[in-house]
């Protein structure tokens, strides 16, 4: 297999294998976790009989491999679940039911995912513009005042925790200046304008921190490219410095930026917990933390798989972009 079709196929197979491996690890980790899952699920005031009933209903007493097998069957063929009073059918791909709420994990994910995607993709645009822009500027103005100022700012940005930036933004913009109402998530499909206004502060606080990393990476990468021989060639042919930096150096410097971005987007989808919590965004990260707290295995597995999927997807996209940017790269 070769060419783009082969690349997609190989990546798809790789993704499935990766995700299966992730799910096995999560199952094993949870199996080894101390504590009585049935007791936690049932609640502190449950009697031993009730706890036993819950354990049976959730099949907590089955061995690990049986439970994992059930999970795989559900994924491929769907599964019927008894919730005590009724039987609920969960069609494939079924990630199971939440221990806590008996809701299908898939539907939980589908309600949380848009929130996380809104947050991360919007913030990504901001951090790329801010980060790459700052990096290019400081490489171009190396050794001058502009660069020192930008370096100080990026270091400060990097060192400040997201909840500090977010809180300060909220207090100043929403509290003192009252430019915006305190953010509250609005669905994009309900009201795109309100969606954007309400996400503005979360985007900013997430992006400011990420932008610092991008600025540093871009600057280093730009300086490296600017020292290359072909840059000297264009200088020796009278091409203006602006063109050299913007056209020739930037393109060469983008490869590591693309790679970093893929990792950050992928992991921020499940990892922007602090931002989500601070701004009350009901996203994947928040849900995952909650599910871990109450040992809600199906939810945790589902969430982790979604996050894993996006990490792999983002990296595959990065490879495609990388190959488009540099024709010497062969996709494998």
């Amino acid at each position, binding site marked *: 297999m070769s060419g783009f079709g082969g690349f997609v196929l190989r990546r798809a197979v790789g993704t499935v294998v990766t995700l299966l491996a992730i799910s096995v690890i999560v199952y094993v980790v949870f199996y080894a976790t101390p504590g009585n899952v049935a007791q936690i699920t049932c609640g502190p005031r449950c009697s031993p009989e009730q706890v036993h009933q819950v354990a049976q209903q959730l099949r907590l007493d089955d061995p690990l491999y049986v439970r994992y097998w059930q999970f795989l069957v559900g994924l491929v063929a769907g599964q019927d679940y008894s919730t005590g009073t009724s039987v609920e059918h969960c069609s494939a791909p079924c990630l199971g039911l939440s221990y806590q709420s008996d809701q299908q994990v898939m539907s939980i994910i589908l309600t949380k995912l848009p929130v996380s995607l809104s947050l991360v993709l919007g913030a990504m645009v901001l951090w790329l513009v801010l980060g790459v822009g700052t990096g290019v500027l400081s490489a171009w103005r190396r050794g001058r005042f502009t660069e020192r100022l930008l370096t100080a700012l990026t270091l400060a940005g990097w060192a400040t925790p997201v909840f500090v930036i977010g809180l300060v933004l909220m207090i100043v913009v929403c509290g003192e200046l009252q430019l915006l109402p305190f953010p509250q998530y609005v669905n994009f499909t309900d009201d795109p304008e309100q969606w954007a206004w309400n996400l503005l502060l979360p985007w900013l606080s997430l992006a400011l921190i990420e932008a610092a990393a991008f600025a540093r990476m871009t600057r280093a990468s730009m300086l490296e490219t600017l020292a290359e021989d072909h840059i*000297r*060639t264009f200088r020796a*042919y009278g*091409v203006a410095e602006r063109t050299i930096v913007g056209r020739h150096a930037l393109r060469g410097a983008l490869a590591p930026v693309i790679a970093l971005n893929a990792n950050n987007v992928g992991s921020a989808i499940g990892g922007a917990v602090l931002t989500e919590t601070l701004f009350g965004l009901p996203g994947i990260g928040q849900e995952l933390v909650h599910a871990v707290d109450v040992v809600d295995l199906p939810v945790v597995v589902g969430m982790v798989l979604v996050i894993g999927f996006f990490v792999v997807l983002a990296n595959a996209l990065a490879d495609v972009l990388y190959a488009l*940017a540099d024709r010497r790269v062969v996709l494998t």
Partner: protein
Amino acid sequence: MSLVQVTDLSVEFGDLRAVDGLSFSLAQGAAVALVGESGSGKSTVASALLGLHRGTGARVGGSIEVAGVDVQEASDDELRRLRGAKAAMVFQDPLSSLDPYYAIGDQIAEVYRVHTRVSRRAARARAVEVLDRVGIPDAQRRSRSRPHEFSGGMRQRALIAMALACEPDLLIADEPTTALDVTVQAQILDLLHTLREETGMGLLLVTHDVGVAAESVDDVLVMRHGRVVEHGAIADVLGAPVQPYTRELLAAVPRVDAPRAAAAAGSEAAPGSEASESVVLEATGLRREFGRGKRAFTAVDDVSLAIRRGETLGVVGESGSGKTTLGRMLVGLLEPTAGEVRYEGHARVGVRPAVQMVFQDPVSSLNPRRSVGESIADPLRARGERDEKQIRGRVTELLERVGLEGAHYDRYPHEFSGGQRQRVGIARALAADPRVIVCDEPVSALDVTTQAQVVALLGELQRELGLALVFIAHDLAVVRQVSDRVAVMRRGRIVESGPADEVYDNPRDPYTKQLLAAVPALDPQVAARRRAERRELAAA
């Protein structure tokens, strides 16, 4: 008015005075070469002509006038209008000197549009025109290729095309052929010559290779430590050098047309009729493929050779001819796909202490984080030697043997010059008490004077220790100066082999003839004659 007028030029980087009190002038349409070894400041002069040191922290003194522009006083804009339009530069490494992300035609068009007010389309057409002019076949289509899709020679042509785009008055060529094979080098030098005849542009050629200068210019400046040692017409300087340094430099240049100088001195140890029976290393039907299926590539194809005790076998060929692959199979670093290597009559598997290797790049073949003594001790430790005192003693002995000092044991590679590092590499090869040493381009990274010293050292060691040497190189002249027998490789096969003088004086294979015709001659008259011969060959 002269095209270039440099008066009392000095360039300083920090405490280092790279160029010191240099003056020369170049008339309209004339050609001058700056010749010198690495670090002599020749490339710095070339960059200074275009004001490329501006804004880098280098201090440039004296006056530089190029095509009527005072480079020192000109504004940034004036300088930009000079660069590329009136004086264009061709760089050494054509791969890294082009932007890997853009098509070659687009890069030339971009440069053209900097200096002319024409449409994108017209600039693109101009790019195709100049690419065609420098002999890129199917220029229209190839102009859309990116640099990595071009061969080394074509990339160099593309760079020259870029230089031609704006019809400059002066072409500055900084080692334009150093990265190229000898036949390609001859083509590029011929191209430069023809272009100069047609356009009447001046040429400033920067080179370490006296032969390249002899082929191309009227006047030459010999540089050393940033100063001009000798200046004159090329035929005078090369024919009757006045300064001792020039004489030394010329003496060190290996001659392709003279028999091996050391042959007489080494004759006792060299393979006489009685020694020639004792073959130490023998390869039969060696073949090596890389890759699988459609991408399979045969690097070495059915090569058989024998190396006798105490002799030197030269393996010469251009890049991609399979000489390095062959060398690695002889040492056992690569397993052959087919065929076998026999050491003293026994089939050999893997690396043997008796067959050692000296690598091309003395910088990257030594671990920069370990002292040279430790590197030399590696083969001893690998053999099971554990007594530190013994090891240190033996390494000290080896260091002294290759002309370094025992006290250098604890120094690190960066503290040594290129030639010294190659000596370390040789000491490391000697540590295992080998009978055969395979030297893969051992001197190609070195200046000619250093090159001569390292070659002399190898000859000395060979005589004293009765070593057999396999000397792999692309430089035909060096190979002639060290070899008893020579094998010429092309596309993985040996096309011709035999006693060195026979192969060089009466080449039978057409490829060998072509190679020898491409070697730059030190005598400008011979060079001109050869050029005419090459033209005839090409026309035929």
